[in-house]
């Protein structure tokens, strides 16, 4: 019975071989000419001004996270907008109202807690 899964095994072996081959093959096959400039962190083509291990304000991460959260949630609006008139009707409207209301509550919470203030 396990024989049925032989193609899967072959596939797994191929995947593993490809990964290992690429990882170890490139340094072996490719030419290597190390220089100082190549060792530097890449920063949009500009010469790095300071160390890459700089500490960012935690507010940055917070804002970034909040953005991502609301951004992802907003994606749901697109498929909804396509379908709301044809299939979802009033139910879809109610559901989305609840959804948006929850987002609004979250926004309100974030706002009141001062997470949107930079300082």
């Amino acid at each position: 019975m396990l024989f049925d899964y032989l193609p899967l095994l072959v596939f797994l072996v191929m995947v593993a071989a490809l990964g290992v081959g690429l990882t170890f093959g490139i340094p072996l096959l490719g030419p290597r000419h190390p220089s100082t400039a190549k060792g530097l962190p890449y920063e949009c083509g500009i010469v790095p001004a300071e160390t890459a291990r700089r500490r960012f304000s935690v507010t940055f991460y917070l804002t970034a996270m909040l953005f991502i959260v609301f951004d992802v949630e907003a994606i749901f609006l697109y498929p909804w907008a396509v379908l709301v008139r044809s299939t979802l009707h009033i139910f879809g409207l109610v559901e989305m109202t609840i959804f948006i209301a929850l987002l609004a509550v979250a926004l309100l919470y974030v706002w009141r807690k001062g997470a949107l203030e930079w300082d």
Partner: protein
Amino acid sequence: MTTLLSLPPWFPLHFVPASNLVGILPVLIVGGGSVLVLLADLAVPRRGNLVLPVISGVVVLGALGTAVGQWILNATNPVVFNGAFADDRFALFADFVVLLTALAVICLSPGYLRRRGMEEGEYYILLLASLTGMLVLSGATNLIVIFLGVELLSIPLYVLAGFARDEPLSQEAAMKYLLLGGFASGFLLYGMALIYGETGHTGLAAIHQQLLQGALSHSFDPMLLAGIALLSVGLLFKVSAAPFQWWTPDVYQGSPAIVTTFMSVATKVAAFAVFLRLFSATLAPYRSEWEVPIAVVAIISMVFGNLVAVAQTSVKRVLAYSGIAQAGYILIGVAVGSPDGTQAALYYLAAYAFMNTGAFAVLTILSQRGEDCDRYSQLAGLWRRQPLLAGLMALFMLSLAGFPMTVGFFGKFFLFSAAIHDGQLPLAIWGILTSAVSLFYYLRVILVMFTAVPDADSDTAPTLAGLSLEGTAVASSTAASVGIPAGVVVVLAGVGTVVLGIFPALIYTLLQGITVVHG
């Protein structure tokens, strides 16, 4: 049911029948409650008031009342949302246990948070959010809903584990829990994917049908088995069964005691609810395949948990390893697979809720600013300082060890007898042997409380009788208002432990005739 609710005419009944919403009413109440608490937290930002715990308590009570109502009405077809969610008595029983535990935790919280100096409104929001996940999980009859419940349950707990923000241990616990939890979710999801891939269904009822056909022709689909195995691994992680228990000791020890209370009891109950539903109903046709592995995991859990607990010096870690061992005992009920086994496991979960909540509640009451009550030396001589607390703690320890006249005895008794009736004598023997080992560490706690001389600095520990919870800064009326509920919870847990140890039928009759629905 529909007649109970008169809906406005514009409501799309054809899409969401009212019975669906009624069926998940406890979930809606608790979920909505967490939003309500969130708004209330914005409205009353002053720290240390009792508005949030009171609202949370009322919300949980409301959900509890609704669940009781559902139990009494016991709709003929308890499956809602096209078979994705069941509000059968099995789920409702788990809901009772989870909700009562949550209520106990909410009663304990204000005093504990005040003493530990971490009165943040988020605590109650997260608690209720996690509780929502548990309620979802107990009734889930669809793989997607199961996953939804697991994550909804877990994510707030990750945050709660790190709630003591200035304590490195707490941070470490949160990080370990998050990473390992994510790891386990991966296994869970992978298992679900395999099962879906093989059966083409996510509904448990449909999967059951597929399995039935496979079992009838004695052809066990290996991919399906692998899926079941991976799904089990994910769930075994959640119930902290060995060898997937690694997170348990560190997280139990690092988390604030009140979070550990909630986590150790409620999570276990909810996770076992879905475990039991899956194995005793949906996967029953494949029983010949999973019976032995589950039994082996049960034995490993009992042996590992009870043995390693002996070597611990931290009370919370001891209780963590004891939790691993208890998971092993409950797994006996799963492995047995018969209705007897399921009932015994449910009984043990209820028993566990009483004794473990009680034991942790004592620790939370004894915890002071800066650190939890965790070292043996902090319990030393407790009998002389606070006889009532020490006596109750001793009772909970004896119950966890399975002494007669306590609820823990009947918990073990029903499990072992179910195993014996089912012809799985080795499981019962391992259970009894490891129970004997468990006496080593349960009795050590009692020994320390009753014989050792107290630390000089711990004489100022809060008292239950006087309810002088902090003594200095807090006005006595407020201290009483946070101390009395905590005291009531501990005493009620003790009363429950003894009364149910004498009259096990009080719960067992509830369990009679519970059949597990899977959509």
